[in-house]
């Protein structure tokens, strides 16, 4: 019975994987063995393990982690509060809506907002803190990155919360659990799957973030994504770009296996 069920779903999906995932991966691996002059070599892999790239990899992971953590901290209460609003589906849609405006335009808007004479600094002055340099700092970089990724975190968490059986919460309350205990013992564990898929949907693309590193961080933050971009589009050293991509894919695979281990009933 089981086998009969699984075959049919696998066909289109595996077809997609073979065409649009396996084929590009093979191409990437193939390119990673060629140096800039088109000779077959391992040089790219050796070069990856030099301090420049290792430092870059470390900072990519660090920033991706920060972006994920901050997104989670902001997104969870947002999702929780959203589930208690009257027109929750509508509000949820309104959370996604800003993502449909072109990213470059929004980045330009942020350049203006965080600028020396922008509204953010006017506000800081108003509350008595005074003008600060906001642009090209870690703060603005993290702020805008979280801004971009947060809908991807809110959505799965919201869905997980929606599924929660309200009688469970009532039960916990009836048993004398404080709101915090209820949250820690009942709500959070039961929405862990949503949290997990939210974290994946944020952390993984955040690893290869680019453009924002230049626009908002003024190239003060250099990530692996920036380096790949540069190798493909500026130096046209596809080999090195592909090598970094291979490492990104390996890193992602490790993350998936680690977070996917816990099996639920």
């Amino acid at each position, binding site marked *: 019975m089981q086998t009969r069920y699984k075959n049919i779903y696998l066909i289109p999906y595996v077809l997609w994987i073979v065409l649009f995932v396996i084929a590009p991966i093979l191409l990437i691996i193939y390119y990673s063995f060629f140096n800039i002059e088109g000779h077959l070599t391992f040089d790219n892999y050796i070069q990856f393990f030099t301090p*420049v790239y290792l430092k870059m990899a470390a900072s990519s992971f660090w920033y991706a982690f920060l972006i994920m953590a901050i997104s989670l901290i902001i997104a969870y209460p947002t999702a929780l509060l959203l589930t208690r609003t009257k027109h929750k589906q509508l509000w949820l849609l309104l959370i996604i809506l800003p993502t449909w405006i072109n990213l470059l335009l929004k980045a330009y808007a942020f*350049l203006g907002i965080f600028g020396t*004479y922008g509204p953010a600094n006017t506000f800081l002055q108003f509350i008595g803190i005074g003008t600060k340099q906001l642009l*090209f700092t870690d703060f603005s970089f993290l702020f805008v990155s979280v801004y971009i990724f947060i809908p991807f975190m809110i959505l799965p968490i919201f869905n997980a919360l929606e599924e929660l059986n309200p009688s469970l919460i009532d039960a916990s309350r009836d048993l004398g659990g404080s709101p915090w205990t209820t949250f820690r013992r009942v709500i959070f564990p039961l929405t862990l799957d949503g949290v997990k898929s939210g974290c994946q949907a944020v952390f993984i693309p955040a690893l290869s973030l680019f453009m924002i590193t*230049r626009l908002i961080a*003024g190239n003060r933050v250099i990530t692996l994504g920036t380096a790949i971009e540069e190798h493909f*589009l500026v*130096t*046209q050293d596809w080999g090195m770009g592909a090598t970094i991509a291979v490492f990104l894919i390996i890193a992602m695979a490790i993350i998936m296996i680690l977070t996917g281990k816990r099996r639920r009933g």
Partner: protein
Amino acid sequence: MKALVRAFILVFIIAFAFMFLSSRLNATQDFAGGGKTLTIYNWGDYIDPQLIKKFEQQTGIQVIYQTFDSNEAMMTKIEQGGTTFDVAVPSDYTISKMKEEHLLIPLDHSQLPNLKYISPRFMNLSFDKGNKYSVPYFWGTVGIVYNADMLGGKKITSWNDLWDKDLKNQILLVDGAREVMGLSLNSLGYSLNDTNEAHLQQAKAKLNQLTPNVKAIVGDEIKMLLANEEAAVGVVWSGDAAEIMSENNKLNYVIPKEGSNLWFDNMVIPKTAKNVKGAHAFINFMLDPKNAAQNAEYVGYSTPNEKALKLLPKDVSTDKRFYPDKATTDKLEVYDNLGKRMLAHYNELFLEFKMHHK
């Protein structure tokens, strides 16, 4: 389930309605006869759209205008094929590369009578001797834009002025390895096409000392940031400088006295061309002094067309900052194609500079 099916059907209906609308819009633009098309591959907003209309009316050829945002991305597209581009507008060093990879079709000068209007200064340049493959479209320099008000009346005349301690956190650099390495090489008195390893390392070490002064290394947004007075000094291309200065008149542009880069964007016919004759007609059309002048006024960059220059307003054509005389341009250098390996090395050094923190 029902809601799901209904929603998806609705999405498909809307999509097909839009598709129909879009094809109707295209149809109204179509030309009755001929059916000949010409695909132009250019930077965004780098031509006066009125000129395209004029060309279409004159020749009956329908123009398809497609845009790119970097030389390298454009080259990749042409290399891979799959699309027909009849005319493209790459920068100088890209032309050498494209020549090497045999991506260009030689021009037939007999079909380009208007070529005679291009100033001899801008013909026969190092990247394309005898203009076998390319015709200059716009040209310019790399220099420094500065806001004298923000600097307390201080003037900047040279690259070395950038290292001034007073400029702490005041400089915006353009995100280009050749430009930034080049300014450091120039400031040391070396050529910006230098390939001597000791010189390059020296230039990189000098750049590291510049870090306290650098506020950010940015792309095209540098124009908006400078016009908005986010920083007092910026290293930019002259075309951008003209645009920034038209928005903020406190700014000034200077070509540093140690020398700098002289750049050209050029029209070429890539090997993907299907309508080679139409491509020649288009290039010739753009070389026509009246059209070239109209285009220069729209885009705001410096035209290499001598006759067109005469048609421009006096205050534009005599502005030494954007139309420097021959004595000045003779001291400037065009980027040589240094080869992939050297270019990668430049980028590596530039990357290390970016990662060097204060």
